[in-house]
């Protein structure tokens, strides 16, 4: 039994790829590359590794074409592949927790990250850069499942039900993961929360 969602372009393209349509694969990559790279980047914290992983995701999708069945939304299936590969990647690389301020500045100068608002003066810029680094660190130091749940919920706009489907978890388990993730982030960024609170007074 299939559950082809209306207007699920990913499902439609996969079915064309199954029939040997090369053009369909290119369309698929073009359509979903932003989502896959962005998700991989926020999970891994490094552009190079994120793009390598994203390429691998698309090749895995291609390899799975013969057994593909549109049982879920294409994006849901995609998120699962991203997570599985990202976890393997993290284990392989034994990534360290710290993200140095210098590394962050290098990334920003090279255009690694989309600017989320330029600061008016150097002092403000330094504070902002430090905050960005701390927020990144707070996310990247989360355990695997908490991190992916947070990334999918916060940055990909996925609902608890959608995350549950992607991660093969119950909705209650997703909510528990998210609560714990957000609690860890809160504690990690406590100093900045106070600053933010005083700024708003």
């Amino acid at each position, binding site marked *: 039994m299939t559950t082809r969602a209306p207007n699920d372009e990913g499902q439609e393209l996969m079915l064309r790829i199954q029939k040997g349509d090369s053009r369909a694969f290119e369309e698929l990559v073009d359509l979903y590359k932003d989502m896959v790279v962005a998700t991989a980047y926020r999970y891994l914290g490094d552009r190079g590794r994120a793009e390598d992983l994203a390429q691998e995701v698309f090749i895995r999708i291609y390899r799975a074409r013969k057994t593909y069945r549109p049982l879920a939304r294409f994006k849901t299936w995609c998120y699962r592949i991203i997570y599985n590969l990202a976890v393997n990647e993290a284990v392989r690389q034994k990534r360290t927790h710290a993200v140095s301020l210098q590394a962050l500045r290098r990334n920003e100068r090279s255009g690694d990250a989309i600017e989320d608002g330029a600061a008016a003066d150097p002092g403000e810029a330094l504070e902002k850069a430090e905050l960005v680094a701390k927020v990144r660190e707070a996310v990247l130091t989360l355990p695997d499942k908490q991190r992916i749940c947070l990334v999918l919920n916060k940055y990909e706009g996925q609902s608890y039900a959608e995350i549950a489907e992607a991660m093969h978890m119950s909705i209650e388990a997703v909510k528990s993961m998210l609560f714990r993730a957000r609690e860890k982030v809160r504690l990690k960024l406590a100093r900045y*929360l106070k600053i933010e609170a005083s700024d708003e007074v």
Partner: protein
Amino acid sequence: MKCEQVRTYGLDYLDENLTASLREEVENHLQECPGCREMIAGLGAAWELLDHYPGVEPSEDFLSRTMASYTEERSRERTVRIIRRLAVAAAAAVLIGLSLVIFEGAPDAADTDRDVAVDVPAGSPAETEVIRDLQLVEDWELLQALGDDLDMAIEYEDFVALGGEEAL
């Protein structure tokens, strides 16, 4: 309501997804419990702070690099398909005793080219010609390995009878 229950309902409370009565229970607890009050307020504020983790867009050449990987993958799959088809044909030839597989040259002239960038229909006369020309299965060990992959037993006596190497 106890603190543990506030933790359970915390996300739904922040999402404004609780029934009116549950919401009231949570808010009554928050009025009495500074710890939970700080936690709930902090969860909301931290959620906003997460906006300070910007994303990235794919590099300009990401699509072309991925399509290059795709082309390599298709080539790899084609090579595997050819070798498997040839192994099937070779094993079938051994089983039915036909000289579809030709063993040519002295042992030291064995063709080690294992990769074949040719796509021919399985079981066709063209495939027979490809097998004849490629000297792919001069190597007894390779023939065995290919046969193992396909669960086909290839007897050494048959290999020799068809002109294979008597001494390795």
